């Protein structure tokens, strides 16, 4: 079974064992608009919690994507180079960005559950 957690910066991390799949939420893709390019990190890169993990470019602007927890990049979604629009079409599915080997699972406790994130979205809209 996987567990999903959310950051206040609108990243999600779907955790299976000690690996988490990171992307941006459906709300975030809606705010960004049409995604035209995703700058993904190299496999093997280590990222700190809250550190820059990727950059997503819409027609208008470039936006940083932060790692929800610290870890090592073990895979990136190469399909986004040919089809960056997958981030808009399926932010929580095919539009994932990268997989992280999580350094410290207790950091997940500082993130929001799906229900908490839904409440958070209500509070900011």
């Amino acid at each position, binding site marked *: 079974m996987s567990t999903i957690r959310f950051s206040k910066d609108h990243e999600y991390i779907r955790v299976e064992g000690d690996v988490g799949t990171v992307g941006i939420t459906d709300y975030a893709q809606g705010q960004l*608009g049409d995604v035209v390019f995703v700058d993904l990190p190299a496999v093997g890169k280590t990222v700190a919690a809250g550190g820059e993990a990727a950059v997503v470019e819409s*027609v208008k602007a*470039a936006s940083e994507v932060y790692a929800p927890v610290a870890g090592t990049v073990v895979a990136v979604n190469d399909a986004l180079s040919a089809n960056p629009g997958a981030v808009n079409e399926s932010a929580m599915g095919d539009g994932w960005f990268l997989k992280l080997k999580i350094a410290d699972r207790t950091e997940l406790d500082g993130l929001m559950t799906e229900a908490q994130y839904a409440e958070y979205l209500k509070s900011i809209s």
Partner: protein
Amino acid sequence: MTDSSQPVLRTPLYEAHVAAGARIVPFAGYDMPVQYPTGILAEHKWTRESAGLFDVSHMGQAFLVGPDHETTARALEALCPADLVGLAPGRQRYTQLLNAEGGILDDLMVTRPGEAEEDGVLFLVVNAACKEQDFAHIAAGLPANVRLMRADHRALVALQGPKAAEVLARHCPDTADMAFMTGRTTTFDGMPCHVSRSGYTGEDGYEISIRARHVATLWDTLAADPLVRPIGLGARDSLRLEAGLCLYGHDIDTTTSPVEGNIVWSIQKRRRLDGGFPGAARVQKELAEGPARIRVGLLPEGRQPAREGSEIQHEGRRVGVVTSGGFGPTLNGPLAMGYVEAALAAPGTALTLIVRDRPLPARVVSMPFVPNGYIRKK
């Protein structure tokens, strides 16, 4: 620039944008639609293929009024490098307000009305963010017999794209035969308006100046046409970038001359020879000797955009900076413009853009990036 402590202004079409589901952002002191629900890519492509409707009522409109055309035109020629005395009735020109050093204070469109009874009148449209300073600057530079009359009671709407002429002709029949860069006083379903065949997208199209109290009716009528969709500022920017058109405050500003900005086509022969405009000495020197730097089009390799501020390098040496950059939906790839040393401005020159500390190969290309659709006939 607009003071952030001032209240945010709204155009007379604000409610229409909200009703259409627009995302509203602050721009030049106004709450403006950046995109509608279909998004920037779809809006951009719709404009290139059909007709896009833009609210540009935030821009500054004014009439310059003097006793006769030559007197009014000479008054504006003291501030701008275009030949305005030689502007024929019903014709429109693009020009710039220059400072004493030949830097660009703003760029603007100037139209001479076609009607004999409006002899001595010029219609000006300036950028929203600059309009207060522009109008103060122009008014301060006028002789006693020429007056600047702001037209704040007027709204401005652009209809742009290959279907624009067909759509507008249903409401303004006498606009179909207009040539590019001409203007005409006419009516839209009986409402008085001023129409020019021009725009900021690289497409055929019109800008329609109309009294603010009539603009919602005009907007709703055009928006109801199945060939027309409303277009926000996001697509307006990607459209003008593909067309190679300058955005004031980014691609041209008070530090750049019209020669450096690569818009010398807007300075007609008489003015190049005779000068008589602010900064003429610099402009004439740069025309004779070539400028040290010049604005060029840049095509990055691959898919990654290079944004404004990205450094431009040649063989490891800094040679300029990107002033506008992004993704071109019609081009289907990244594109940019920026200033480079004049020796490196030839199309095909290989350069490197520094994006997030990494080198991105690019080459100089001629502009526009996408062929324009202007109707020059007649």
